[in-house]
């Protein structure tokens, strides 16, 4: 019967109910989109790092220990040969990294070496770099984002490049140029940003990392197993993202709280007489409070559902506009979290109107016009 009462109340003022649900849903969408965005970014980075096929990564010490970017070309290429003499090291690959528009990087790669490490890129369209000075490879997401085809000319790093091939995503980079060419453009001849190391036995990665770290030669390097490196991209390990997410959640809860408080307060005012009637029938204060809280929680529930639906919409729009820069995904595990957070906000928001309704004097409420 409580459900019937609540439902009829919601139906009685459909515009108010729908607006409340919408206003609750918007912050839910914001939170889910933010979470989808940060998860998407980190998963995408992890996938591409793993796609390199290396077991160990060595970065110049100037790059921060837990930064996703490895800007700067600080490693002399001659080290690559030294590393390859290590026991169990099958090959080492130097890559030049140049950040362009955040979070995108251009990577300078020697395609022949890259093939030796992991079989090379998969070409969806076109061919490998023909003219190393002017050609670029892009993955399908960046191609979609830039509306580019094979043969298109793209401006990257302030100069024109011809797209010679469109590659399957998921390996190293979205934008690939010739290593030597990028070194030249960056005035970093003979230097690379990062060295990927492949072992003859991946199970020995930890052991080899230990040995490399002990070696004086690499004192200036950050050396990690690929597994440890990719786990640094995990959303939970990126403090700033976590704090930002909490802040947005806080704002969302505040909005949900305020919307429900206002909406229920108005509803309670409008229903003063009905509250008097319920009291005259013997409805207790807790019964009145319960009805208001349940109505608010119902709004919160529908708001969450709408928020989830709208997050699909956001995902679709972003996927259509900037699939390469923002690889947003739907993170199902956050649905229950969003629901609990929303219900907490709406439940709290309904307390004040609910208590003020419960405290109405029945005679005055019945006399209310």
């Amino acid at each position, binding site marked *: 019967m409580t459900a019937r009462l609540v439902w009829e109340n919601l139906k009685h003022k459909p515009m108010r109910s729908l607006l409340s649900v919408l206003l609750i849903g918007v912050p839910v969408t914001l939170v889910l989109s933010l979470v989808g965005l940060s998860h998407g970014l980190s998963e995408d980075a992890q996938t591409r790092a793993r796609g390199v096929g290396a077991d160990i990564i060595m970065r110049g010490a100037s790059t921060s220990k837990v930064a996703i970017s490895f800007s700067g070309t600080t490693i002399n290429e001659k080290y690559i040969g030294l590393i390859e003499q290590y026991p169990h090291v099958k090959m080492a690959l130097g890559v030049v990294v140049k950040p362009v528009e955040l979070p995108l990087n251009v990577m300078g790669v020697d395609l022949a070496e890259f093939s030796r490490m992991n079989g090379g890129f998969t070409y969806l369209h076109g061919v490998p770099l023909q003219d190393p000075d002017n050609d670029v490879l892009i993955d399908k997401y960046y191609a979609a984002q830039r509306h580019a085809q094979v043969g298109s000319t793209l401006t990257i790093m302030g100069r024109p490049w011809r797209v010679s091939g469109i590659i399957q995503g998921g390996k190293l980079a979205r934008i690939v140029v010739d290593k030597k060419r990028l070194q030249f453009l960056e005035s970093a001849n003979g230097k690379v940003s990062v060295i990927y190391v492949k072992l003859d036995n991946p199970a020995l990665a930890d052991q080899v990392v230990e040995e490399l770290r002990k070696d004086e030669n690499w004192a200036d390097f950050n050396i990690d197993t690929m597994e440890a490196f990719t786990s640094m991209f995990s959303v939970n390990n990126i403090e700033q993202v976590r704090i930002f997410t909490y802040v947005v959640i806080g704002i969302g809860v505040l909005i949900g709280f305020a919307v429900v408080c206002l909406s229920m307060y108005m509803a309670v005012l409008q229903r003063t007489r009905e509250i008097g009637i319920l009291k005259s029938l*013997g*409805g207790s204060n807790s019964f009145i409070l319960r009805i208001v809280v349940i109505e608010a929680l119902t709004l919160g529930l529908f708001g969450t559902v709408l928020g989830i639906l709208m997050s699909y919409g956001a995902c679709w729009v972003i996927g259509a506009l900037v699939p390469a820069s923002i690889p947003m995904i739907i993170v199902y595990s956050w649905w229950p979290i969003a629901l609990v957070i929303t219900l907490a906000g709406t439940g709290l928001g309904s307390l004040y109107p609910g208590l003020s309704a419960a405290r109405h004097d029945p005679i005055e409420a019945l006399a209310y016009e």
Partner: protein
Amino acid sequence: MSSGLIIETRDLRKTYKVGKVDVSALRGVDLSVQPGDFLAIVGPSGSGKSTLFHIIGGLTPPTSGQVHVGGRDLALLTDAGRTRLRKRTVGFVFQKFNLLPNLTARDNIAVARYIAGNHAGPDPEFQELLRFLGIDHRLDHKPNALSGGEQQRIAIARAIVNHPAILLADEPTGNLDTENSKAVLEVLCDLNKRLGQTILMITHNPEAAVFAHRTIHMRDGRIIEKT
């Protein structure tokens, strides 16, 4: 206090504070009601009739004096105790019908059962009563689709669905035309006769008072005459 009475008041007083002014709504009311009584209460407006009902029905506590309703001393009841009294012991019928506008007639009655903790379906007796009230075919309509007479009969059904000891009707025909008034009064009269329902009815209409066993006249918060 003597037993056997369903309502008994002694020197009942009620003072409302309006800002800094005290308004004496009741100034010493002595009233005794037997079970099965049908009592009409008349008097000019402002004479304290509704206030008397509000106290007997547990909507507000008395300021002083004694009130016993259904064997309970209302002066001792807490807010929660008065809520229980409204659930089970009294049923209200108001001039303005006071149905919940969002609910159908059926649900209006069901809400009263639900609040009283009566979760079983309506008994056959009650179905019979709905037929007798002439509203059994109107139950799925919301109040705004019902005539005033129908709404008031639904309100009566709602007031007695939990078999209260006392039915308090505050100007039940005040918003009805002659024909509907007559129908409602006949229903009340019949409830009193058939079920022995104790009824207290406030009215302005001398013709309505005729239906009752006896009439009490109020003025300035006192009973001035009993007939």
